[in-house]
């Protein structure tokens, strides 16, 4: 009886989820249609719906808000310019993520491998309100050093690593976003990880930061 109820409950929640997804899909299609007619209110609405997610992804890839205004602008301008090409096969958010990843890729390629990370994270923004000052400082320094190592990676490897390890996306999704095979993506992530581990071996702060991460 209990099992039957659980199954019914699961089916019900699946149905709700499906309906929600379908509603979101219809809403996206309608919003895109409005954008295509050049309606400024629709443009604003689409930007507001997706800006937080796109910004978070770009921030995790780049490690700072430097040039973020230009990148966000460029990403969304490209989204709007290519909106006619969205065939509603993938969800709108996945498609927008793909466009923004391409923008980030171009930016990283243009910038080259340079050590230019200047993290602007303030103490307050580091999670864990119960952290001691020393641990908070360690977190800040660790993040800085991690991105300093990432600055030395190529654009593709950096994207694969940051999207998978830091943004927490599955490998298959990352592969789809960067437009390569899962195997190639996996290899890039592995190489980046090796590089970071090598750097961590020589850098106690980075090592401790990564160990904290492992512990967490």
């Amino acid at each position, binding site marked *: 009886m209990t099992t039957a109820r659980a199954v019914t409950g699961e089916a019900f929640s699946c149905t709700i989820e499906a309906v929600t997804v379908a509603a979101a899909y219809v809403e996206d299609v309608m919003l895109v249609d409005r954008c295509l007619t*050049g309606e400024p209110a629709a443009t604003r609405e689409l930007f507001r719906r997706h800006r937080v997610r796109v910004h978070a992804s770009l921030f995790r890839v780049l490690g700072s808000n430097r040039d973020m205004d230009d990148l966000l*602008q460029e990403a969304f301008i490209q989204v709007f310019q290519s909106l006619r090409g969205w065939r509603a096969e993938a969800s709108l958010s996945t498609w927008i993520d793909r466009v923004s990843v391409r923008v980030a890729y171009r930016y990283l390629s243009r910038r080259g491998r340079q050590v230019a990370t200047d993290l602007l994270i303030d103490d307050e923004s580091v999670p864990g309100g119960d952290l001691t000052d020393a641990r908070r400082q360690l977190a800040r320094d660790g993040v800085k050093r991690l991105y300093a190592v990432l600055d030395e990676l190529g654009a593709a490897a950096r994207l694969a690593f940051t999207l998978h390890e830091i943004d*927490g996306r599955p490998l298959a999704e990352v592969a789809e976003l960067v437009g390569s095979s899962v195997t190639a993506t996996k290899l890039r992530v592995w190489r980046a990880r090796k590089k970071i581990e090598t750097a961590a071996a020589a850098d106690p702060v980075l090592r401790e930061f990564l160990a904290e991460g492992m512990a967490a």
Partner: protein
Amino acid sequence: MKLANKIPVEQLDEERLTNIERRIVIGVSECTPEHVPRRGFVFAAGGMLAVATAALIGWKLHTVTVVEQVAITPQHFAVGDGRDGRDGVKVSIDGATLAGTASYDVTRTPTRIEIQMQRGSLELAVIHDPHRSLVIHAGDTEIEDIGTKFHVDFDGASTIAVRVAEGEVQVTRRGRVARVSAGNAWTTETGTVALAVLDAPKVIAAADPVAVPAVTHVSVVVRQPPIHHVEAVVPPHVPEPRVVATIDPYLELRTAIRSVPLELAPAIDGHSDAATEIAKLKKIAYSPTTLGPEASAATYQIAVLLYRPLGQDSEALNTLEMYRRRFAGGKELHAAQWLRVRIECSHTVDEACRRAAYSYQHEVTSGRASDIAIRITNTQ
């Protein structure tokens, strides 16, 4: 290696997001097509385009001179008051807008527009076209525009006055050439003279108080009896007031403003170079894919070139306003604000000039320009 959610995202503040949103909406509206033409309309549009192209080629091949008589309703108003050609008052001829109380003939060829003024007053706003010159003949004087807004008065005989609001005109009379730039005027009597001097209210000198007594006493003695002593009162002689000087109280201040060089100005010589450069810069500034710093630099440089050498002050101010709205934190913001001060204060120190200076002094708190801005703000 578990780093997910370990690296916090520093949120952008609302102001930055609003700026980005605004730029996106502008960028999208610039590149969104008005409508998608349907297939049926494409053929019609193609046909019309072919006809128009053939007509254009025919027109280019045959440089026929067209002479037309334009009669203007005697009604005086300033250019830019919102009227258009539909009421028959303002006339547009290939990039030039004419208005005023004059009657004139227009002779037009593909490379030249000639206006033969009989008499009257004419306001012109001309968009500079390096491939087409616009020349006005008034009596024995020839006035050639170099992309500008100006005003011509001709009494039909020999007195001509040209007032240049923006840009530059070249006046030729009896073999002598004078170039009159914005803020200046040229008359047959004075030659080139500052507009402020020509149009300024004349300062009347008070006559010498000793030479003009309040009452003149004249004594008259009549010798016939009975003898009377008559005292007559004669109204005092008041000499005609005479003009002794025209005063620009802010001359020193305006000289000081001009002495501060414009920062980050592009090195350009000549009008055609400037026009070409502006066309290039516009592509950078208005492209939706251009990054902020490049676009802001291009926008500022457009404003500088419109101001000098083109002398299109109002266009330059519009561009600066656009700069302010699009690039609130731009690298050239202070330079742009100073350029606004310079343009607003170029003719006189008025309310607009003081407002520009006030904005500047609040942004830039030290330096020579800031000191001048404070002095401008303090004028009344």
